[in-house]
């Protein structure tokens, strides 16, 4: 049985005293946030409603022991839908802050900076949607330099910084430049059947596929389509796109979230800026701007991503036939 403690200065009070924690007790457990939550879809243990409940019941250690409390990326899809006006990501941040003070650490992977490559140019600090990067003086090879440093408790491993870093000095474990390249290459996909159907490479934000049916559809795509999942479309360095096209891919499709629904706040906007500028440059060069395509998939766009890809494949096929 759960023993609850309602004395002042309890865990609940501590969370509520933290900025963002004030509205905790408004929650009437309707579950709207949970069903809107993208993290919950892939990681059902992350349940903001239940976490709030646990805080209300002063279940301190159990709350902290759940590693998923660190998963909220403050995408704030839930907040505008909450009928009680609770800013859930602020609340989760409040819980994280209390956890940090208690000595807990985020178990999430985080960005890593190569100190030798880093010039302290500050681009990453401005690019990070979470303020997880900042410059600090450090002696490297006997010389004091300002180097970017990652606050692990804030980093959500979205990889926006890794793409932004002009020196490729930042790496996010599973999505390093090399690993992304390896995903594209896997099974010698690029080399295979050069004369076959034109290849379509999709860089897909992993939060895009919200419906089971969409996930199924994505696993049944034809062989000339390769989908490379990344944490965020903001991870996509235009170099990836150009490299793929240069390697013979016919079309690159970058799929991000609808603005305002980005799991990492800014990623989709950054990707939009990059891809649309690429389109402009292709036009300026007198090249086929259609070779780079960018779509933003919203929570309501059931079936849109697989349909977009299949349309693209069909269109390519018909144009090849026409040329032939």
């Amino acid at each position: 049985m759960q023993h609850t403690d309602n004395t002042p200065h309890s865990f609940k009070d501590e969370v509520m005293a933290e900025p963002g924690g004030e509205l905790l007790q408004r929650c009437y457990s309707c579950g709207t946030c949970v069903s809107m939550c993208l993290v919950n879809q892939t990681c059902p243990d992350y349940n903001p409603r239940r976490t709030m409940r646990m805080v209300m019941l002063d279940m301190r250690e159990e709350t902290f022991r759940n590693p998923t409390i660190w998963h909220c990326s403050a995408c704030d899809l839930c907040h505008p839908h909450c009928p009680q006006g609770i800013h859930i990501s602020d609340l989760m941040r409040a819980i994280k802050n209390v956890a940090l003070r208690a000595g807990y650490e985020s178990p999430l992977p985080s960005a890593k900076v190569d100190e030798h490559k880093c010039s302290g140019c500050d681009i990453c600090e401005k690019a990070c949607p979470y303020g997880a990067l900042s410059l600090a003086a450090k002696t490297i090879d006997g010389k004091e330099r300002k180097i970017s440093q990652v606050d692990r408790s804030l980093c959500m491993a979205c990889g926006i910084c890794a793409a932004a870093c002009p020196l490729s000095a930042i790496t996010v474990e599973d999505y390093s430049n090399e690993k992304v390249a390896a995903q594209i290459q896997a099974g010698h996909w690029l080399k295979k059947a050069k004369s076959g159907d034109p290849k379509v490479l999709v860089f897909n934000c992993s939060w895009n596929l919200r419906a089971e049916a969409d996930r199924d559809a994505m696993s049944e795509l034809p062989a000339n389509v390769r989908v490379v999942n990344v944490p965020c479309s903001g991870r996509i360095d235009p170099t990836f796109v150009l490299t793929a096209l240069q390697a013979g891919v016919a079309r690159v499709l970058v799929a991000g979230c609808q603005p305002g629904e980005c799991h990492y706040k800014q990623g989709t906007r950054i990707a939009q800026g990059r891809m649309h500028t690429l389109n402009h440059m292709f036009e300026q060069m007198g090249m086929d701007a259609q070779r780079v395509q960018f779509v933003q998939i919203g929570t309501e766009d059931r079936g849109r991503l697989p349909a977009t890809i299949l349309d693209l494949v069909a269109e390519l096929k018909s144009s090849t036939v026409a040329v032939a």
Partner: protein
Amino acid sequence: MVDAARHPNITVKSYTEVKRVEGFIGNFKVLVEEKPRYVNMDRCNGCGACSPVCPIEIPNEFEEGIAPRKAIYIPHAQAVPLRYVIDEEACIHCYKCVDACGKLDAIDFSQQPRQEWLDVGSILVATGFDNFDPSVIKEYGFGRYANVITAMELERINNSAGPTAGRIMRPSDSKFPNKISFIQCVGSRDERYNLYCSGFCCMYTIKNAVQWKQTYPDADITIFYMDIRTPSKGYEEFYRRAREMGIRFIQGRPSIITEDPKTGNLFIQAEDVGLGRTIELESEMVILSTAAIPRVDTDAMGSVLNISRSPDGFFMEYHPKLRPVDSPTDGVFLCGAAQSPKDIPASVAQGSAAASRAARILNADEWEIEPIVAMVWEDRCISAQGKKCGICATKCPYGAILVETGKAAMVTAAKCHGCGGCVAECPHNAITQKHFTDAQVISQLHALLRHEPEKKVLAFMCHWCSYGGADNAGTSHFEYPASQRGLRVMCSARMDSDFIFEAFRLGAGVVLVSGCHPQDCHYITGQRVGAERFEKLTKRLVDMGISPQRFRVEWISAAEGAKYAQVIREMDQTLRQIDPQALKEEIERTRPELERRVRRLPEIPDVALALELAKATS
């Protein structure tokens, strides 16, 4: 409906609006305006020959816009009165209806709006509610997804007298939907729209679901809810029956509905709270249980009737517990969903309750009203001395004061409602208000400021609004500093400049004058009389050297307890921020001028005695 129309004691005035209300309990005069129907009520026999020939088709509001109607129409087959009406905005004046009407000759385009004054002793407000428009909740897709409909639309689709003749079909493809879902609390219990519980939606949804299941036992029906509220007689049993019939209840508020554009089917995403897991449910049709909301014209109606709104937007009752059908205006009663969302049994019960409250008055031969009225000290009125004045009459909202030069001003007690505006405005202190005399108010002022006045927040409150607001702060337990001292008069119009001068003379730290919002004033224009005075007074006080932050004017309704508490908190804060020494010096410095201002107060009967007594007591 028909009973009402046939009852010999009831006169149905349809297509008629209330424009103005004058008078008081037992003696109201109501100006009503009948809109032109352009159909002669006596000649029209409701035969319906006109409507088919009308070439205009517009959405039928009675059918929630899902079916058309003509420009000449009856709202529905059972309409009372069963007489046609021409919608002037839609009519193109082709006169085909005139031909169709033929010899009956009932069409009359010369009709004009018709106004009349009606004398009544009591008014019952049963103006009802509006339905929440769910299209503002983007995530539910109403208006974008054809098969997301409102409960009211379902009522019409599932009605043998409705546009589909009771044949259930979904909008996208006219197919029968076998798998349907209801979503509760759409627009209610949601701080983005309405915080209150709309009350009757749980039951109407269960009713619709049960009815559907009875007709189509194979139907797959789901109800998404947060809490099912079944507090009245037989309701919980009905809910249990619904569960037993196999209607699926899922506790969890859907966050989003998406549509499969190919099938038109809808996917509802919600956390099944019991399960602790997010589920996705496919439905062929989704019915939104929309909230009841205050009618769009509530404000306009409120200012005609002099009644105000609670924070939820519905009409406010005199007392939520003890006088739930009385409005704050004597003789005006509230019933049905105009006061708060209600189901049919509750509306009928409240209708009866309001009728009995009204009958209390209407069955009496005469009614007693409080004698809190103005009274002229004839010897002090300069009009009696042949001088031209008449300020009092200009301030009276009721025309209750007659001024003839050479005679003292005369107050007609039955017309006077007792706001006290004339009393405060009389430059010669020649008028008093019974039960709120200058001597009484000044005695209170001295008592309230007898100890450390410079640390007090003195608050003048009007009986109807700001005193009610202070009570509301109390019943809601909205705390504010105990430095506040309240003094109640009937209306802000009664808050005499002399009272405020006297308060500052006594060294009050800060002074609040508070009354109703202009549209809520119980005395038509009483608030305005006060407001104009306070505007001048604010400047005058500054000229006299009183720091502007020491005097504040606020309009606070009886529902605004939170605001009342906030204003007092702020004023207390203001007072604490003033340096005590500087405040003391300001009080000393301004006292001579303040004394000069109130030097004539002791001339008023009893005031000298009051001052003397106050001195003796302190």
